[in-house]
């Protein structure tokens, strides 16, 4: 098990861990925006930068690396609050605040780094998307890939193909759920759901009339994992009720 020090705290982590994993094990907070434990590390937001020193390097030589995707190795020394770490995170947050001046998540993080107001030009038409790509990555991860980042550089955005209702979207809402700034709009009710300009019919529990999931989602999972289609006909609440009834009848038998 590689043993490393995070801000002076010694910590041993399993092989294959990242510096971020090690910091969490050592109870040292590193802010992240594009990281999600369920997804491959991406290293895009650059907020989780730390200063790294490795055995074999000169004593005064450090490298600024992203902790989310850098492997943790034996003997490493990590500094999460060095002046240039703080400064780099400050620039990143200052820039994100100019991009998303109204996003509470960014406002609060920036305030932690002493930034109340951005020093740069605010976006003319601000939205809350920080382009962390969690939404597109979770969609990819589910093997759906209905949305993607399109264009390059300053024109980059998250969008369905050709800005039309995405044919592959199943209306699962994973993208909206994972979005750290909650900027993917959707509407959902017992009868219908809409997201990315696409309308979905809901499967409803015959017993309660409550919406379960979208019909497209049920079909997708039934087709992929061999889950019986009928599994989705009842809601979790109804399933729990059924289960409870079974328990009650068992007790009576006893």
């Amino acid at each position: 098990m590689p043993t490393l020090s995070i801000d002076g705290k010694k910590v041993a982590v399993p092989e294959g861990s990242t510096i971020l994993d090690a910091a969490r094990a050592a109870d040292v907070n590193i802010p992240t925006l594009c990281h999600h434990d369920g997804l491959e590390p991406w290293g895009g937001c650059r907020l989780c930068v730390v200063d790294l020193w490795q055995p074999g390097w000169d004593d005064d030589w450090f490298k600024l690396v992203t902790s989310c995707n850098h492997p943790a190795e034996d003997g490493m020394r990590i500094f999460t609050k060095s002046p240039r770490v703080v400064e780099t995170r400050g620039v990143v947050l200052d820039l994100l605040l100019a991009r998303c001046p109204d996003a509470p998540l960014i406002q609060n993080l920036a305030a932690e780094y002493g930034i109340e107001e951005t020093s740069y030009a605010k976006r003319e038409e601000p939205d809350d998307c920080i382009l962390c790509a969690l939404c597109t990555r979770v969609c990819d991860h589910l093997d759906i890939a209905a949305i993607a980042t399109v264009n390059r550089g300053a024109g980059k955005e998250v969008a369905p193909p050709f800005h039309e209702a995405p044919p592959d979207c199943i209306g699962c809402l994973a993208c909206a759920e994972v979005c750290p700034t909650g900027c993917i709009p959707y509407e959902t009710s017992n009868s219908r759901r809409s997201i990315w300009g696409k309308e979905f019919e809901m499967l409803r529990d015959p017993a309660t009339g409550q919406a379960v999931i979208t019909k497209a989602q049920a079909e997708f999972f039934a087709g992929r994992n061999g889950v019986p289609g009928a599994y989705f006909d009842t809601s979790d609440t109804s399933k729990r009720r059924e289960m409870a009834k079974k328990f009650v009848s068992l007790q009576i038998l006893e």
Partner: protein
Amino acid sequence: MRIESKTAFESLQSEARARHADAQAEIHVCCGTGCLANGSKGVAEAFAAEAEKRNSNGGPPLVVKPTGCHGFCERGPLVAFKPSGLLYTKVKATAVSEVVEKTVENGEILSRFLYKDPTDKSRIEQYSDIPFYKHQNRVAMRNIGLIDPTDILDAVAEGAYAGLAKALFDMDPDQVLDEVETSGLRGRGGAGFNTARKWRSCKKAPGERRFVLCNGDEGDPGAFKDRSIMEGDPHSVIEGMIIGAYALGSHEGFIYVRDEYPLAIVNLMIALEQARAFGLLGTNILGSGFDFDIKISRGGGAFVCGESSALMLSIAGKVGEPRAKYVHSTAKGLFDLPTVLNNVETWANIGAIIDRGGEWYASMGTEKSKGTKAFSLVGKVKNTGLIELEMGTTLRHIIFDIGGGILADRPFKAVQTGGPSGGCVPESLLDLPVDFEKLTEAGSMMGSGGMIVMDDRTCMVDVARYFLAFLIEESCGKCTPCREGLRQMLTIYDGLVEGRGKSGDIERIERLAKGMQLGSLCELGKSAPNPVLSTLRYFRDEYEAHINDNACPAGMCRELTAYRILEDLCGGCHACFKACPVDAITGEPKALHTIHHDACISCGACFDVCPDQAIETFPKNTLFETEVV
């Protein structure tokens, strides 16, 4: 046609060399991209038609070869004659029959096609006497201009694949690695990483399957050396890759070329096909038992796909976005397998190094930067074109001896090297010997060998802004500092060149630049502030003039600059009147002309056409002051 042994290859070589032994003359017509644009295709066709006419009459034949780029693009279309060594410049298709009749038949030299030296106005006959060529030393570009790139026998006659034959039959893979190490060759793509070290670290990586890649995604504004190599001598690249694959034990290679280089793609495809037909590529190469083949992968033209990890994702069919390289691509590259990626020019050097020995290569250049380097010389210099020189040549020698000095003999201001990741080197550093270390110390970098020469009429703030505008289009947008930082940087620069600069701008630029250098994911973002920082380092006074005085000292920023005609100098030639696109100039021929500032858009057209240098620029804000008074 398949060559199955070393002896068979050697007899192919002698056969290829003897092919044109009885020719009366060989006529090499440059069909590089620059000359093609100037009409060289018609010139080559006209020569071919003349040759056919003459050759059908019997007698010693005329051989006409459309070749790759000779480099002297400024003077195209270029026609070189062998064995006489004569070079004609700016040849028109209509003049071809006269050239054949007088020069080829009767040895008469037509002086109007000879290169005219800009300093002493003398006409120079010999290719090798022209200063542009005299000072060059070509290794990577050794065969460009000498061969028809679509004829493999031409390349073989000039020595192509000799290095490969030597490697396969006289050396084991480790000896090839040792030879490359002895040569001291460093990556020609920009960063200058030691080639042998890269190869060794890939060879050490565990795995049965490994790849050899060639980076032909050259995208820096003003750079075209890789393009010319792929177009003019694709065999040098292919040979280098086969030798590399042999050293590494790889059997699969890819050449990644941007689709904006259509001629490079066509010539590479022809070369690959011919090499396969001759048994130089594919299974059992030259009968040695070694297998290796190359595929071409065409890129969509994203600058960022020249970055190694983005390039590999692009070959794999994914979006070309860089990833963290904490695990090197030599261990986990294309398809997550061990991979060596080298630049076109690096590969083009390998065959020569194996053929002539690592020590020969290492005898050229400086202590840490060995060999030669190709540069694309462009901008405000008299002889623009493609050159290759020993490392350690000074900027002054490149710009003034080879480049012939500054256009219209204006004062030199700076030279931008290394493209958008590089920086501007000022006049005080003209005697800097060009190598990887020296350029980095000067705040610039080698990059892909682009050199943009600038005169006194270049605004350095505007130059930095130009590169930012390029980069903001080309940043992949994955990481925050590069995507958002460039956008903010450009906003500040737009303010500076439009007269909205304010105090604190320089400090905000510097803070942003540092954040981008430290925080960006890939080298594109980390090096994006270089044009900004180098111009700030050497031309800070220009920034201050823009901010404090609302003035552009170079007289280029339109919003800050006004034009006026100097009474004493105006000859009344009426040229400015005709050039003005908005009718802001009045005056009768042979009389003094006047610029009307209310209509003038500060485009500078009058300035450029004035033969008397009677037009001068001045800060626009002083114009309003005088009007108020």
